[in-house]
Every structure is written in structure tokens, then in C-alpha cells.
């Protein structure tokens, strides 16, 4: 399996093709529904003024996201009382819900990779070509196994969003993923969608 470290350089991103298994090592953040909406509204479209520590959090996230990776994940975390955080279970959540936001977040932060499950749509695929970036697919439901590749929890922001929706900064080692959308406009999800639609049409005609 090909090993890649975060931050990821453009030439590495451009060399990745759909179907390629990859092991990721470095620092990334988790961010899902609430985080994407918050990033877009507060810092990108600016339809809502920053509140509380928003601006400090934004400054802290910029260097992690620049050349970095965001993980669509709402983990189970132990050590909440003592702040000795540990990821207990941390598989991917369904990515398509971030379709309205993802490409803009990628462009704004120069984000190189998005990890999730189920794939994303045309807007994100175009974003992957522009940035350039890729979509990495993790195995849905493989939460205990994936949590083992999280070596350390470095911190947490926006815990008021709740444990699953917070921004967790994590260090990972050999985090296993497969490229399913690349920077050249190829998407495994688009192919499977079209092929299965054709089979469905035949079955419905029976």
C-alpha cells in the first residue's frame, strides 16, 4: 500500500488515481455537518458574524487545513471528564451531506484531501480538479479498527457542537483509505451509479 504523509503536495495528489489504496500519516481534523455549515457561514460566505472564539479557531485551523485533510467522522471519545482524550471508535460518516459545502471549503483552505464514505457528487469532483485534491474512502462501520490508526488526540475545538460534531485534531499513522475520486475528474461513484442504473432499467422492464 502506498504511504502518504500530510501535508500532501500537489504532485502527489496529481499522481493518485481512482482505485488506489493509500495509508495516510500526519495531522488532520475531523469535521462533519455542523463544522462545514459553520465554516461556510462564518468564514467563507460570511452570512453570520464570528462569535466567541471563532476567529482564534479559524486561525488555528488554517495551517492544518492548508495542504491538509479533513475527515468526515463523528467519533466515540473516551476521557471526556479528564480531557485525556482517546478515540475509541472512529469510522467515516456519509459524505454526500457535505456536497453543498465541500468544494468551497477545499478551495478556501487549499484542502488536499477529504476522507469519508459513500462518495460525493459533481460539485466536489470539480473542486478536486481545481484545487487539486482527492476524495479518500474509508470503510464505513470499521470504527474500532480505524480508531487504532489514530495515535494521539492533539486537541479539540467547538466541543459545544457535541462530541460527534466537534473539530478533533488528531495524529494518525497509516490510516487506511482508497482513492475513489481523483484530481483528474474520475469518480468510482459516478461509474457505479451509472452502471447500476442501467441494470435497474433492465430489471424494471422485466
Amino acid at each position: 500500500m502506498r504511504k502518504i504523509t500530510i501535508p500532501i503536495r500537489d504532485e502527489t495528489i496529481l499522481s493518485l488515481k481512482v482505485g488506489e489504496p493509500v495509508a495516510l500519516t500526519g495531522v488532520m481534523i475531523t469535521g462533519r455537518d455542523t463544522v462545514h455549515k459553520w465554516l461556510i457561514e462564518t468564514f467563507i460566505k460570511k452570512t453570520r458574524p464570528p462569535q466567541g472564539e471563532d476567529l482564534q479557531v479559524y486561525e488555528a485551523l488554517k495551517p492544518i487545513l492548508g495542504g491538509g485533510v479533513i475527515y468526515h467522522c463523528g467519533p466515540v471519545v473516551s476521557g471526556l471528564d479528564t480531557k485525556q482524550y482517546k478515540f475509541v471508535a472512529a469510522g467515516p460518516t456519509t459524505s454526500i451531506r457535505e456536497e453543498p459545502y465541500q468544494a468551497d471549503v477545499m478551495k478556501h483552505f487549499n484542502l488536499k484531501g477529504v476522507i469519508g464514505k459513500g462518495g460525493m457528487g459533481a460539485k466536489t469532483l470539480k473542486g478536486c480538479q481545481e484545487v487539486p485534491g482527492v476524495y479518500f474512502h474509508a470503510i464505513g462501520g470499521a470504527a474500532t479498527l480505524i480508531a487504532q490508526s489514530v495515535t494521539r488526540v492533539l486537541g479539540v475545538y467547538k466541543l459545544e457542537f457535541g462530541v460527534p460534531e466537534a473539530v478533533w485534531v488528531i495524529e494518525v499513522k497509516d490510516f487506511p483509505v482508497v482513492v475513489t475520486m481523483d484530481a483528474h475528474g474520475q469518480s468510482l461513484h459516478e461509474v457505479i451509479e451509472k452502471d447500476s442504473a442501467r441494470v435497474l432499467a433492465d430489471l424494471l422492464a422485466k
Partner: protein
Amino acid sequence: MRDLTNEILELIRRTSSDLPQDVEKRLHAAVENEAPGSAARGAFETILKNVELSRKNSSPICQDTGTPIFYVKTPEGWSTLKLKQQIRTALAEATKRSYMRPNAVDAVSDKNSGNNLGGDDFPYIHFDEVEGDELTIELMLKGGGCENVGAQYSLPDNRLGAGRDLAGVRKVVLDAVQRAQGQGCAPGILGVSIGGDRGTGYVKSKEVLLDKIGTRNPDPKLAELEERLTSEANQLGIGPMGFGGKTTVIDTKIIGLSRLPASYFVTISYMCWAYRRRKMTVKGDEVLYD
């Protein structure tokens, strides 16, 4: 009345961390159907490794520990009020111990309660009084990814050419599977109800998932449709995680309900491969887990 809080806590631990044998067996069989080196085979191998590790560590199979749905059958003499309180206490404790993720989010304020206790309907508990002297509690954990791809059709459906008969049921179920792609963590298990109103349709399409994999509806027409749907869904080639592959659906379960003359609903609950359901039985002093 006996306090079952600790026993229910154990039920939750088992349900979240220990995948039932009938499901695991099917996943093992599915690996062999995928080509060596394919993404589909890799997905199954990862899934099975995770199943083993979660069981060993008592940690959640999936971080989305889902909507906790309890089905409680009580003989005469048990207080459902007290049982409800014990279930809620056990669930909060299970969350503290990281068997469960805090999953109850107030839909208006967006606040996560932090302990898995939401309003009166979270966790969701069904009570039924039964004959005999055995109390049973079944727990199903259904994640949000697969819940989101559930679907309800009102027949006739002109787009699909689906009329009000079993041929129409077949068409809409296949459509739902194709639309789900890999989003519900395929391979899935389909719970299908025919009839009912919009509410009971969804309730029953979930309940039917409590039966073991391979259990067929006693009506031969429905049993045949169950098998046909599983086989045709697998022709769609969506495969595990939507990577493409031979196994898209592991099993299909259908239940027929009563309907109004005006309504013909077909409701599909899609269960992810992490098909977490467990049962405990209380008989006298004994507590047994399946």
C-alpha cells in the same frame, strides 16, 4: 420488581460491540465471492477484522451507535414505567463507558444532550404485554447513514411503472436499493413492509429486521419475493461500500400489513452491514443473552 439496570447495560454493551453470528457468517461467505485484490474484497476483509477487534475490546463496531430501539415484552406484573427508567439509566451509563456515542441531538436547538437521553422518544421503547413468565428485551442499534437511505413509496408509482401488487413492490424496492448506492454502508439487509399507514409502515419495516438472517415469510409468495429481491439487488453490482462487487444486499425480509382502500405504501428500512441487534431473556432469577 427486580432492577434490571445492570443487565440492560450488558445488553447494550453486547449489542454495540458484538455482531451477531448469523450476520458475521454471511459476511465471511461474501468475502469469497469477490476477486482477490479488488476494493470490494479489501472492504470485506477490513469489515471482518473490525468485527473481531470490537468484540475483543468491547468497543463499538461503528462509531455511529445509532438510534437505540428497544422492544420489551413483559409478562403480567412488570411495571413498564420502572423498566423505562432502568433502560434510560443503563443507556446513560453505557454512554459514559464509551459503549455508545452521545447521539441525542435536540433538533431545534442543535444541542447534544451528552448522555444519549433525549425527549420521551429517545431512546425509543416499544412495550408489549405477553402471556407466560418470560420477560424479553431486544435492542436494535440503527445508524444514521442507513436510516437516511430508507424510503417509502405510495403506489401506484408512475415513474417506475409500479402498480398496487407484488410486481409493483418488487420494482420500488429495487429502485430504493439503486438509489441508496453505498451510502447506507452496503451490503445491506432490507426490511420491507407492504401496507399500513406512513407511520406503521416504517415501524414494521424495522421490526421485521429482528428476525434471523434467512428467516423467510411463511407466505410462499412473499418468501419467493424476498429471495428474488436479494438476488436481483445483487445484480445491481453496487457491492460493499458502493465499490462495485457481487454482494449489495445480504437478505430481504417482508411483512404484509393491513392498509386502507385508498393507500398502498411500500416502506423500506435499509440496515447497514453492522446489523446490531441482541436479545436478553429474564426467566425467574436467570438472565440469558442470545
